[in-house]
């Protein structure tokens, strides 16, 4: 199973591991650490939805990357630029079109996929602009989401998805399996995949995939173009 092999591939390469406790102290999220670990040192990186620039700073300082960002919120951009980061105020759904092919080694979309208007288009653009795409997203197939829907009949509100359906900017939720299916549609190869449980710990590799889709509250995928 390709997905499982991809997971093993990531688990087998711990040498690039960052000091998670230090990153956590920097206000980082665990998924950011997982994302950062997937990035080779000194790469050219575009972070789509860079927020206040936490990941950019991590990549620049820990990985020596030429890291640039796009962020929708004015506050996030201005705070990041004031810290000396190269971030542009823009909309992933629009502005990715202006980047040339193969401009970056990695294009990262961390916790943003579900907020885009055109997730498929955004992913296509990422795989065009970058040689690799890294995507982290909340897994709507997590058992708590299913529990809320199945037993309570309510849209889930969790720590990672804290906003009610009527106010959330997240308009395109998907499950880990849904994402794998989209990657197949886009003819993208899954090089690595990591699922994180609600405590931010990695779901053990030995577990079958349906456990991932059930226990993984977040997922991080590294994709490449097949062609």
């Amino acid at each position, binding site marked *: 199973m390709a997905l499982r092999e991809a997971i093993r591939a990531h688990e087998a390469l711990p040498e690039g591991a960052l000091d998670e406790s230090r990153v956590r102290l920097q206000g980082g999220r665990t998924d950011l650490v997982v994302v950062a670990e997937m990035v080779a040192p000194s790469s050219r990186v575009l972070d789509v939805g860079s927020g206040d620039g936490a990941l950019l700073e991590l990549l620049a300082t820990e990985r020596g990357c030429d890291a640039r960002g796009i962020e929708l919120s004015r506050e996030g*951009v*201005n705070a990041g*630029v*004031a810290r000396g980061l*190269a971030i*542009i*105020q*823009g909309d992933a759904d629009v502005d990715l079109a*202006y980047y040339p092919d193969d401009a970056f080694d990695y294009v990262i979309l961390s916790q943003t996929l579900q907020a885009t208007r055109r997730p498929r288009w955004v992913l296509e653009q990422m795989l065009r602009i970058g040689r690799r795409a890294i995507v982290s997203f909340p897994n709507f197939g997590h058992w708590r989401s299913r529990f809320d829907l199945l037993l309570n009949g309510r849209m889930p509100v969790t720590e990672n998805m804290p906003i009610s359906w009527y106010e959330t900017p997240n308009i395109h939720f998907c499950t880990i399996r849904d994402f794998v299916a989209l990657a197949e549609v886009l003819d993208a190869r899954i090089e690595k995949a990591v699922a994180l449980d609600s405590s931010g710990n990695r779901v053990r590799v030995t577990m079958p995939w349906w456990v991932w889709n059930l226990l993984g509250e977040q997922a991080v995928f590294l994709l490449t173009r097949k062609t």
Partner: protein
Amino acid sequence: MNSPVPPEASLRAPSAETGRSEADEPHSPVVRFGPDRPLRLDAGVLLGDLQIAYQTYGTLNAARSNAVLVCHALTGDQHAANLNPVTGKPGWWETLVGPGLPIDTDRFFVICANVLGGCMGTTGPSSTNPATGRPYGLDMPLVTIRDMVNAQAMLLDHLGIEKLLCVAGGSMGGMQVLQWAASYPERVFSALAIATAARHSAQNIAFHEVGRQAIMADPDWHGGHYLAAGVNPQRGLAVARMAAHITYMSDQALHRKFGRKLQNRQMPTFGFDADFQVESYLRHQGEAFVQRFDANSYLYVTRAMDYFDLAADYDDVLANAFRGSKTRFCVVSFTSDWLFPTGGAREIVHALNASGASVSFAEVASDKGHDAFLLEEPELFAIARGFLDSAARAVGITPGRS
């Protein structure tokens, strides 16, 4: 830095004379280039006698790596951070340039030159034409933004500065920043372009044309030879300034400042006196402006902005202007700026993205309109400081006081 003359004296002097004296013998250091080092203008002629008036702040370090060039806007001048010798008012960018400020004169060597075509000591239509001994007037060739930048490059050569840590400017100053990055990419480590565009829009050309027509319709303009006639087209220039000033402000800013409030009266006079405060304010702006600016310079410099279309020199593809550029860019726009709206800034950013250049872009929320780049805007200050600090770190300049 020269000590400014008492402002009262020059303000009381006839403005034509003020223009003359500042044009030829400004209260600034000048560098002169003779016919042996002519400046080739875009108009296709050589300018064999060129004078550039400039101000500097701070100290050039031994490595000559801390030079920052500040480019002024349409009606600005070289007095960015010192008392203006003509108006007696603070420098036009004293909010941003000074000790401990974002463009920190404790750390950086800051240079600001009067633009080519200006009236504060750099060669322009009010300068004396050495061939005739009289002011150039309309005999001065038309100049472009690129001509202005080429002249600044000659000044930097004269000062022995090969590479700039940063080129910074707003509005027309931002146009010069973009031109600098395109013409001399290897000389520009970082570029800060604020409230600007890569080309002047039809709407902005139209506004400029209104101003120029107001000047040329004034009988005192004398076909451009008013200095020889000993007069000054003050009414035309004042109207030009009034019209332009409206474009520098936002509707909200005008409303907040003046609303429909009446000027020193309880009732409208049912006449054409300045009943409204906003009218009185604009009249004051016009009157103050003619004391410090030359009418022909206004024609020349507005024309230079009109002609600015950076992509036109690069097969109409703006990204080509920055192809392979190592310069770090920071582009800033303001939400309420309708003269240089965010769309124009975004065009620059998209071109920089397409060219692979490193760029930051921030839109600052402000209701102050285009003028915001000259005013108290803490978010702009934080962005400029962060951008310059990052550039300074990258070239190994010691951090300033926080």
